[in-house]
């Protein structure tokens, strides 16, 4: 059998962006190869805490979130044939101090201004929504249409559906760069030789930056390590997504019963190894102290697992989703800055339109271009 090395589209990166866009392009009848350096879901896509959130998003990417929540998430399990464990029971963000309340009021004002249903509620109202939290909580912001899903099942569900529709995934192949033919992006150079596509989609998380550099494109994106801890399964307590004004932790109780809670130590930029995503001994204690402040009733619940992942943090904390004018045939999607999971089902719609018609018409992504970064005047 001759090995497949050419396709209509070569996608670089087997995360949720690569898998979901492969699925959508295959649905449109395109022949797609996805190249992944390790395994499917190796990056942030299988390391995140599952928040599907519209609140506290920049208006420039809010449309992606609102579109996904209104049109895709509620029926995604049926669409993929995999239970993605989506629960839309609201996002609550808690405050303990007057300073916290100011932060929450600020977020709430921004969200309501763009038409999102978010409001401030009292500590007692918060405890009515979730009776398990501390009496010390004095206020919260509440977005009833936010929720959470299982990122592992969602990423691998998109992967499975894409396979069903004829996409070829090749893992264990590291992309080294992109080469142009007659001015157009065509060749993907790897440690396993060249692959050729009519078009190329670059969605390899932070590594996209280095790969884009090989055709002279750069973006102000940095790598930031964050961690997540998971507890043993507990009887069902609540379905809401949690956040706190002080940022000590965020997370939810999963369908399985375990709590999935993310956070950082504040020192991660200097103490974490960004080439090997190892957890740091400072972080789980730090997240645990945060939990104890807001949910002292979880004191005796056991942590069974922790892991680290990175945010591809863009300077304005917004993704870059665009066709590259200087390199026709190249489309990029990276810089999701730690909140790409919730919007991913909508990002893939925007990408499939960008790549087939040259423009994203269903969802406005015009403010997420790669050429928006300017130096000081």
């Amino acid at each position: 059998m001759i090995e497949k090395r050419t396709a209509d589209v070569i996608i670089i990166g087997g995360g949720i962006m690569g898998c979901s866009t492969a699925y959508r392009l295959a649905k449109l009848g395109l022949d797609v190869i996805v190249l992944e350096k390790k395994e499917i879901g190796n990056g942030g896509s299988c390391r995140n805490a599952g928040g599907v959130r519209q609140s506290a998003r920049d208006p420039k990417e809010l449309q992606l979130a609102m579109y996904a929540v209104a049109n895709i998430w509620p029926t995604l399990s049926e669409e993929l044939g995999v239970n993605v464990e989506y629960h839309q029971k609201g996002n609550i963000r808690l405050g303990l101090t007057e300073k916290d309340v100011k932060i929450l009021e600020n977020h709430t004002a921004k969200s309501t201004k763009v038409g999102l249903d978010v409001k401030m509620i009292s500590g007692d109202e918060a405890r009515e929504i979730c009776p398990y939290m501390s009496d010390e909580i004095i206020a919260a912001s509440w977005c009833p249409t936010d929720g959470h899903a299982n990122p592992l099942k969602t990423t691998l569900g998109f992967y499975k559906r894409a396979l069903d529709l004829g996409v070829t995934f090749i893992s264990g192949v590291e992309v080294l760069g992109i080469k142009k033919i007659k001015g157009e992006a065509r060749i993907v150079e790897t440690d396993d030789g060249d692959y050729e596509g009519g078009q190329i989609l670059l969605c390899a998380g932070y590594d996209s930056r280095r790969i884009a550099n090989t055709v002279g494109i750069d973006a102000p994106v940095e790598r930031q390590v964050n961690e997540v801890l998971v507890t043993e399964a507990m009887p069902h307590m609540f379905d809401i997504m949690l956040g706190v004004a002080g940022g000590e932790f965020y997370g939810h109780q999963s369908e399985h019963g375990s709590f999935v809670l993310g956070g950082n130590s504040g020192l991660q930029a200097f103490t974490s190894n960004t080439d090997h995503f190892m957890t740091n001994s400072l972080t789980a204690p730090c997240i645990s102290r945060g939990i104890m402040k807001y949910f002292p009733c979880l004191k005796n619940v056991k942590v069974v697992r922790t892991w680290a992942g990175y945010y591809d943090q863009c300077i304005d904390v917004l993704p870059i989703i665009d066709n590259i004018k200087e390199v026709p045939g190249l489309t990029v999607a990276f810089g999701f800055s730690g909140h790409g999971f919730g919007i991913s089902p909508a990002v893939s719609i925007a990408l499939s339109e960008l790549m087939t018609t040259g423009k994203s018409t269903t969802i406005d992504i015009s403010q997420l271009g790669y050429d928006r970064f300017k130096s000081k005047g």
Partner: protein
Amino acid sequence: MAKIIRTAHTEPFVEKPDDDMIICRCEEITKGEIRRAVYDGMSTMNEVKRYLRSGMGLCQGQTCQRLVQNIIAAEMKMKPTEVGMIQGRSPVRPVEIGIFSNNKTDVKEE
């Protein structure tokens, strides 16, 4: 990691008489579910774990990991050693949140 080319299976999934056997006791995952996950495209220990939860329970795969590895290897016609292990995760034994939070040696004084 070794190169793996993944495409959809053209032949249908074939059930086996011992598919009901529980392999991951913590999460109650059967041999049939693992075989089916490999058929669906899950091709590494971590992918099967993330898709099914095998090895995500209290023992973190310490009991079933070898068994899962052998099943994946047989389905993929690979050697068990080529399939590898699941990514090890801290802590080695479950630790209560309250105990973790007591580790304050590096915390700044308020």
